[in-house]
């Protein structure tokens, strides 16, 4: 009996220590599961995160943003930092044409930055803008392959990778990017996503927004309201879809 008791005590203490370990493990798991939140807090500690909301309901497809961008940067013929796609779909009489203004998505985890061999492409710590340093870039075109939005091109004049940089020279002077400034419908809203009082934050909070190619995991900072995500290459739909890219590349890449 005494023997039995001892073994019972042993058993209980063993169980206690197991429970303790289990508790510790659960605790660790809780901490681990809390990690993404911690990481998010760390990101939001960054003072400014510039982003853009494009309200496609207000876009009339006039290409003024494309032209303003071309003029601002003297972008070579055949290339675009910003462009507008037309998405036509449906069969008469049930048809629609929607506009999809495009630009660099200034992702929070950009693949173009992680593949850059020279460090020429970088994400600015102070405001989250993804930019290219033309002094360092050697034009290997790796980032052009890596961008899931085809936002980059090789500039034939300078020989380096080029793309939208949210008009960093204007933004740092307190001005809005050229495309935002010129947009006649007010479809482009630019601002600080970390400032809850900004117009962009209010738009984000009060509208359903989506990003392009979310599954690529790049966490874009360009958001769309009422974007038509239809694509010619979407299989499994019999609906007529035609996308006009208005670029040198006739198809989305």
């Amino acid at each position: 009996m005494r023997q039995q008791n001892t073994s019972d005590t042993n058993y209980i203490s063993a169980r206690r220590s197991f429970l303790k370990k289990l508790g510790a493990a659960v605790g660790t798991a809780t901490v681990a599961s809390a990690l993404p939140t911690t990481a998010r807090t760390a990101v939001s500690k960054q003072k400014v995160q510039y982003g853009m909301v494009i309200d496609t309901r207000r876009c009339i497809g006039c290409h003024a943003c494309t032209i303003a961008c071309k003029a601002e940067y003297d972008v070579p013929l055949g290339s675009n930092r910003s462009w507008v796609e037309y998405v036509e779909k449906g069969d008469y009489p049930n048809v629609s044409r929607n506009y999809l203004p495009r630009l660099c998505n200034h992702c929070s985890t950009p693949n173009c930055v992680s593949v850059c061999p020279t460090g020429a492409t970088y994400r600015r710590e102070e405001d989250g803008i993804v930019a290219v340093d033309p002094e360092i870039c050697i034009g290997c075109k790796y980032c052009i392959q890596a961008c899931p939005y085809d936002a980059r091109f090789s500039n034939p004049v300078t020989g380096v990778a080029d793309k939208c940089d949210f008009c960093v020279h204007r933004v740092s002077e307190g001005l809005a990017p050229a495309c935002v400034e010129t947009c006649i419908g007010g479809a482009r809203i630019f601002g600080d996503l970390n400032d809850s009082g900004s117009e962009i934050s209010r738009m984000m909070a009060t509208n359903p927004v989506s990003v392009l190619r979310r599954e690529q995991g790049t966490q874009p900072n360009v958001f769309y309201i009422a974007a038509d995500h239809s694509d010619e290459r979407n299989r499994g739909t019999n609906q007529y879809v035609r996308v006009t890219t208005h670029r040198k590349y006739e198809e989305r890449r």
Partner: protein
Amino acid sequence: MTNELNWGIPVIAYLFLAGVGAGALTVSSSVLLRGGGGKFGGGHFDVARYGAYLAPIPVIIGCGLLVFELGSFEAGHWFKWLNMYKVINLSPMSIGTWLLTMFIAVSLVYAYTFWSRDAGPGDRHDTLRRAAAWIGVPLGIGVAIYTGVLLGAMPSRPFWNSPILALLFLLSSLSTGVAAIMLARSVLYKKKLDTASENHYRESGYILTASDVLLIGLEMTVIFLFLMFAHLTVGDVKHAVSVILGGDMATMFWLWVVLIGLLIPALVEFFFIIPRLLKHREFEVPRGMELIMPVAVLVGGFMLRYVVVVVGQVTGPVGI
């Protein structure tokens, strides 16, 4: 296929040439270290020698092509590519640059140790040669794998974004490296005076051919797995691989890569190694075959890079 290719023939040629060079160095170093009847190199010393001479040349040419293809070089900034050497980061291209630089240095040292006419096992360069070979094996494998990792690093390119691509490029590199050595030794073949060296020549021919069959067999297995898993999946990858399964590049892939580059050389080489393998007869290959088979393997290796690089760029994520 209205897309413009950002990476064209120079990059395709580089991937092929770097593969051949890396394969040649790996094979040559392994043969040297393995010996095979005698001291380091032993009876297969000439195989190691051909590999040693072959290794640096294609890699240097390939790297040259890469530099010519850079946007900065085309725009007239001829030395801007040296910016590569100012940083090391986790970009596959950055790691690859340093690997290739080490590769070129080590392979040149290795080739130098074979330079003198009477080079042989145990001569004055023996220690240096063996040291270079020990570094050469991992370095060659590293360069061969890196060419696949370079393409595989991008989720935006579903055709490339597969862990098996690097293995495919490694096997293809080794196989084309063996083919390059086989081609060199049959082109430079001179009738030997004594039967002993003639037998040595035959024996190393058998070893090279048998390894090539094995490598091509593994390569076909990897291609089969690649296609099978791509066929069984949905979405981006299925859409991308359909281009070679039955799309625009199907002929290019099935005829040039699979038939001419893999199946025919493997069957013909297998036919010639059977008597030696199973019945211990002499290994005899007609001279013509000895020249044509390696050429077919090399053409297949180039076409593999061509198909992979082009299809990877003309396909992308489906949907927006």
